[in-house]
């Protein structure tokens, strides 16, 4: 299943193009660009509108080749999604290795100022709990700090440290359970006839609805 790992660019509000040339262990394959269309106004139970309506969404498919100390090199194909106004970057991989941190670290070291990715993703408890409150249904949340029912406490406005949240989001006729844990989103994609790049870069989809909700909950 495809997993999104989240980061921000260091310079917020400064539009940066995704790196285009071959850098280090990255080989850029295909890319796609489109404008975000507000999906929240008519559907979201929590947010009245979408703040980043019209922003450019850029998707860049790449091949990443690891160079292990022992054994032969291994390659993985993934997609980097960059959202120009909110400055969020989503790294989408549908395999376990290499780890997202490995790819982000490589990007940080080699793209440098051209595409300054933050070292880690450090949201506030309020960000995460806003995202939970914006779901259509809360299936489960794990918190290390309270024995009281965390779902009730969050619905009443408390902001708790959350290690894992399983949430149901409904968009039009679609309904999916997604998982948030430690800067990673697991969003089921429809059965794929197309490439990962094409599946991710649809104009309107449940995934795009979840991503817009995420941007609203987590933006600073």
């Amino acid at each position, binding site marked *: 299943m495809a997993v999104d790992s989240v980061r921000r660019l260091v310079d917020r509000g400064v539009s940066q193009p995704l790196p285009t040339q071959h850098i280090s262990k990255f080989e850029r394959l295909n890319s796609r660009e489109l404008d975000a269309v507000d999906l929240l106004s008519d559907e979201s139970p929590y947010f009245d509108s979408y703040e980043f309506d019209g922003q450019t969404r850029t998707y860049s498919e790449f091949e990443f080749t690891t160079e*292990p*100390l022992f054994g032969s090199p291994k390659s993985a194909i993934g997609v980097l999604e960059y959202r120009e106004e909110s400055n969020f970057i989503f790294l989408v991989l549908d395999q376990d*290795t*290499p*780890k997202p*941190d*490995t790819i982000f*670290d490589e990007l940080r070291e080699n793209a440098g100022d051209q595409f300054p990715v*933050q*070292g*880690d993703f*450090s*949201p*506030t*408890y*309020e*960000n*995460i709990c806003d995202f939970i409150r914006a779901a259509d249904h809360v299936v489960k949340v794990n918190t*290390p*700090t309270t024995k009281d029912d965390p779902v009730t406490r969050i619905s009443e406005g408390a*902001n708790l*440290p*959350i*290690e894992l949240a399983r949430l149901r989001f409904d968009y039009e006729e679609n309904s999916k359970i997604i998982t948030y844990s*430690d*800067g990673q989103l697991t969003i089921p994609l429809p059965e794929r006839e197309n490439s990962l790049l094409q599946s991710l870069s649809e104009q309107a989809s449940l995934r795009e609805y979840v991503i817009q909700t995420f941007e609203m909950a987590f933006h600073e």
Partner: protein
Amino acid sequence: MSFISRSRCRLREFCGIGHSEICAELSPRQTLPGQNDVLLLQPEGGFLLKIVPTSDKKYDGEIRFKVQDPFEIRNQSRPEIVDWDYNQQKLQFNEVDERSEVLMKAVLPEKFRGEASACISAIDCTENITVGRLPMKSDPPVSNG
């Protein structure tokens, strides 16, 4: 402040860890069987940092994490009154007047995967005093055939 918290502070002073305006406790979220005080990394492991001011004064200060290379510390999430500087490996607390809990994690980068032991030190930057420690162990490499 609770009796348990006061005891922890006194214990730290007795052990020579130092005196600070705060008590800090690092609680591992994953541990090795039979070693409940050792953080298990596979290849990362979460821990909860609990900060309690030792007086009625609000705490404004910084906690810096120190670990042996190539381990590093990352933040998972934080209260609104706490900021995190990844490059400095430092938490900034702004007017904390009661218990404050921050979800952190220790990471062993993928290319260094293997069995290793290390210790996380939490240092109060104002007094340059170690206010908490947590031993950790990364798991042996997983054989994938």
